[in-house]
């Protein structure tokens, strides 16, 4: 008697530790191992790109060229970060990006929430037309508006300024925000608003103190998605901002990479790259599920 499975059927009942009831699941467990292997090797490759970047950012320029790309920095040069932050103007790009993102996401969200509420709740003549006009913005590529927009900003004296870019960003976020928010408003029960009205609250007051709190999770989702896309916006920023003093991170870092080819100060550039990675990675670590869910809702419905 070598193994329990080798026992003849007649004596199975006599074997004290009866083998587990035969589950009809596929005996081939290698599939799972292969899956893990595939996932792990992909993730490892992906992470090593980050690691490489971080290690270069801590080397010296001569070391960067002489040492193996995967070697640890001999003596971590934390000064590279200060150098990138101050010398390479990363701090300036950072503040510019921060201003542009906060201002445009905040203002466009306020306007979009108001418009979405009216569009979802109030029956007025021309409502479906207005809704259609807003929704048409969802399929307007940036390329379609770029040429006239460039001259419009130029005529308004806003070309090259962050304020002009903020105005453009507000406008570009409005269609998607209204689209997502109005579906949330439609799913909201009306009783609370009616009760507030009965109590004599003005409609504006009802909106701000009764309606808004109810949709705050939706607002948070939309704000996150917009923050992500504006922080990383590249095309408009590239076309409209030519002065390095006024550039946002995506455009500024590209300029730095061009400069690095002449100055050969690569480690400073890599320190800059690492700095620009951090804020969104942190945001992602905390709000990953929410962002991903919001994006997929938007994509699958659209």
């Amino acid at each position, binding site marked *: 008697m070598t193994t329990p499975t080798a026992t003849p059927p007649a004596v199975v009942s006599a074997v004290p530790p009866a083998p587990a009831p035969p589950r*009809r699941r*596929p005996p*081939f467990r290698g*599939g*799972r191992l292969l899956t*893990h292997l595939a*996932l792990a090797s*992909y993730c490892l490759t*992906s992470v090593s790109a980050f690691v*490489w970047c971080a290690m270069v950012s801590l080397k010296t320029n001569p070391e960067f060229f002489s040492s*193996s790309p*995967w070697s640890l920095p001999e003596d971590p040069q934390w000064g590279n970060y200060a150098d990138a932050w101050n010398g390479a103007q990363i701090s300036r790009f950072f503040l510019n990006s921060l201003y542009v993102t906060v201002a445009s996401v905040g203002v466009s969200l306020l*306007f979009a929430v*108001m418009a979405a*509420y*009216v569009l979802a709740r*109030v*029956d*007025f003549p021309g409502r479906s037309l207005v809704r259609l*006009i*807003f929704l048409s*913005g969802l*399929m*307007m*590529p*940036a*390329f*379609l*508006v*770029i*040429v*006239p927009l*460039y*001259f*419009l900003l130029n005529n308004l004296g806003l070309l090259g300024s962050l304020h002009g870019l903020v105005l453009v960003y*507000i*406008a*570009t976020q409005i269609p998607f925000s209204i689209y997502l928010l109005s579906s949330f408003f439609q799913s909201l029960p009306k009783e609370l*608003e009616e009760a507030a*009205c009965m109590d004599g609250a003005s*409609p504006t007051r009802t*909106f701000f103190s009764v309606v808004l709190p109810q949709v705050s999770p939706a607002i948070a989702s939309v704000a996150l998605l917009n923050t992500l896309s504006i922080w*990383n916006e*590249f095309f408009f920023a590239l*076309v409209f901002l030519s002065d390095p003093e006024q550039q946002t991170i*995506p455009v500024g870092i*590209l300029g730095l990479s061009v400069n690095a080819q002449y100055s050969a100060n690569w480690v400073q550039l*890599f320190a800059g*790259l690492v700095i*620009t*990675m951090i804020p*969104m*990675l942190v945001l*992602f670590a905390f709000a*990953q599920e929410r962002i*991903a869910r919001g994006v997929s*809702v938007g*994509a*699958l419905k*659209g």
Partner: protein
Amino acid sequence: MPRTRPNLLERQRRRLVVPFLLPALLLYALFMLYPAFTTFYVALTEWNGVSAPEWVGVDNFTRLTDDSLFSSTITNTIVFTVLGALVLFPGAMFFGYVTQRLPLGRLYRFLILAPVALSVTTAALLWKFLADPNFGAVQKVLRAVGLDSLASVELLGRPNTAMLMVVLATVWHGIGLWMMFFAAAAERVPAELKEAATLDGASSFQVFRHVVWPLMWEVTRTLLILWMIQGLQTFAFIIAMTNGGPLRATEVIGTYLYKVAFASSEFGYAAAIAVVLFAAILVLTLLSQRLTRRESEQY
């Protein structure tokens, strides 16, 4: 009294319509609608941005049909989109389906999603430098695994490999979100169906192939169109990694339009390219809406 209540609410709310709609509508009209419509006019003119636009009718569009550079950018855009779909869709589908049930699924998901948090230029530059023949790390790895012939290739300097590198960087950056799209789609498949199939002895691949996939195909179709719309507009990775080179091998519609407008100052011609691009996107969008409508009828 109870009868007048909804009326009062309704009347009160109507007073909100104008003040609540106006700010959004004004900004949207000024900075999106107005430029969008103006592009159609500009496309019918010759305009260097300094002197007044000169009406030329459809000349810009006939010029486009003769422009060999434009047709090669269309080819490159299609190559980008197709190559991207071939890498992205199987990958995202696999990740999305598999990470749902694995014990370490959430960790994998975070790691796969992480590049999405990088700005497009940061991600593009990272891959540009990883592939750099002078100090890049990719070459070292290729040598280490014995692919010396590939390691000596300047990956971004050769027409055939440059596009592949741009595609890989783009997919690496965005695959996490597409993974989530597929995960969301897979979650829509009723769990009982999968359990029933498993009880009947189906392997997990068979469950996927015969139970999940038929239901997911509808969503996949829509996602494919979404990818095509994005592929048509690909821009940032090209600008940051190759700037359209080498020998214009990675010049796509977006980068060509950008250079025609802001390097050559041919704004009428650039507007014409924008109109063509918009028409293609419009067709794809309408197609996807038709597909989604049919899909919601079925469920």
